[in-house]
């Protein structure tokens, strides 16, 4: 098949979008854990996921972005909302948002942050300084070739696992088949 002739994409306002999307991700993340109403939390999580998809797009990984939208934002979050709507919201709203474990949580967060900083400082050289050049436009096809060529076996194993998980879920949910 003849490759579609595509002149190199020219990114527009990259810096702005990067900060915008990462800011959106962070803010949504904070909202996810601070909102008392779980539906609002889920909504914030959706925005966070969409912003992440935007970031993927900026990294010239459109396939990952698309999958992010279709699976996380479209599929998984719908199920989340489903469950949230069916549980007793009134009760969860009355529960205290930050309970006694906040100290432990804070410590864990600090430890994790410290770990990130250490890794970044120690392994600075691992990160390339130059901005990644746009890879070819056909990187979705590349993913396909890789998945079904080089990593065929791993891919099939993963799908088998998922199949087992589906059957398990059905068996657990339905007492009598």
């Amino acid at each position, binding site marked *: 098949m003849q490759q579609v002739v595509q002149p190199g994409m020219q990114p527009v306002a990259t810096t702005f979008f990067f900060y915008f999307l990462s800011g959106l991700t962070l803010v949504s993340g904070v909202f996810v854990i601070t909102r008392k109403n779980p539906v609002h939390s889920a909504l914030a999580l959706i925005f966070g996921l969409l912003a992440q998809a935007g970031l993927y797009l900026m990294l010239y990984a459109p396939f990952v972005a698309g999958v992010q939208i279709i699976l996380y934002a479209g599929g998984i979050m719908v199920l989340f909302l489903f469950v949230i*709507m*069916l*549980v*007793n*919201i*009134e*009760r969860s709203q009355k529960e205290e948002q930050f309970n006694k474990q906040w100290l432990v949580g804070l410590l864990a967060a600090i430890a994790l942050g410290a770990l990130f900083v250490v890794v970044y400082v120690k392994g600075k050289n691992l990160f390339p300084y130059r901005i990644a050049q746009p890879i070819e436009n056909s990187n979705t096809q590349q993913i396909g070739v890789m998945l079904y060529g080089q990593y065929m076996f791993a891919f099939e194993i993963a799908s088998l696992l998922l199949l087992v998980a589906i059957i398990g879920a059905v068996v657990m949910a339905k007492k009598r088949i």
Partner: protein
Amino acid sequence: MGAGQPGNRERPITMTDRTMTEQKTTEQKTSDPTRFLSHLELDQPDKTFLDSNELVINMGPQHPATHGVLRVILKLDGEKVLGTECVIGYLHRGVEKIAENRTYTMFNPYVDRMDYVAAVSNGLGYCEAVEKLLNIEAPPRAKYIRVILTELNRMASHQLWLGTHALDIGAMTPLFYTFRDREEILKIFEKYCGARLTTHAFRIGGCQYETYEGFERDVIKFLNFVPPKIDEYEELLTSNRIWLERTKNVGVISRADAIALGVTGPVLRASGVKWDLRKAQPYAAYSDFDFEIPIGTNGDTYDRYTVRMEEMRQSLRIIRQAVERIPEGPIMAKVPKVIKPPVGEIYHSIEAPKGELGYFIVSDGSTQPYRVRVRPPSFVNLQALDIMVRGALVADVIAVIGTLDIVLGEVDR
């Protein structure tokens, strides 16, 4: 709820009576004025069905598919109906009380307002009951006119039923087709007596009006006009896959249940009981005509549909015979100026489009009836709703309400 009904024996009663009695006690406790409008615990948003496993929904009185102001309280598990309770009376006008304060003649127009889509049948039942009480008989020509108009009205009623029933199930188009053809019937009524819906076509002792010039021609024209239209409705629905799936085995009521619940009319016949008052206890001139009683076998919504469709064709058959054989003669019997039946009581019933429509009239010898009791077919048929929809889905409730063919004016009177 009717937990002790013998008709329910065959089905396990999944709904506990506890919940309904609970509602009753809360009702009695609160003197909140809104409890009449909603005495269910609907204002608690947290009570969703993972907690209680049950969801109480109020269908009506303002609902597009309850054919008026019927209110059905549905107890749901997901979409599955655990039980229903009908709340009726929103259209109660005290027709029976009014009758006690009107003369026999004055009450005649009131009966049209009960089943307003089959007003002619109501009038026929009432007039015949009073005639029986007076021990007079309408002349043959009047009887034939009565049969023609009543059967036309049965057509109109069934057409209206078909349109709205199909609309409930989601088929929009038949509604307009049936209304187009019903219009022709209403035009005949209008030409005959000046009214289209609440006709007040008959008087005690016969008919007020002689047929107008060209009445027979109009009726024959209608008889030739409508059979292809009925085929047209059937073409749209009878073999439509979705229609079949929505109606077959939906709202099944067994023969025994139907009899126990006193269900009459097409609903009873669809359950396989070959019983039609026009044949069983002929009134008016029905004994002169040759027609079939269509019956169903499964007692499901589809059977009721086919029974009614066939009834329309049989009605046409009766009308054709009546028009061809209509005798000449007077249209009013000798009726005293002031109707004063002797002391006594009478029960007379006819086969209205919806079932057995009975009038129980008690006379104390005065000009006003002492008591008029109307035995409304819709009211009694509606009682069967509960057992017909147990275990079905919400969509089936709609289909079953449609297939029962209730008119709230008659249920509530």
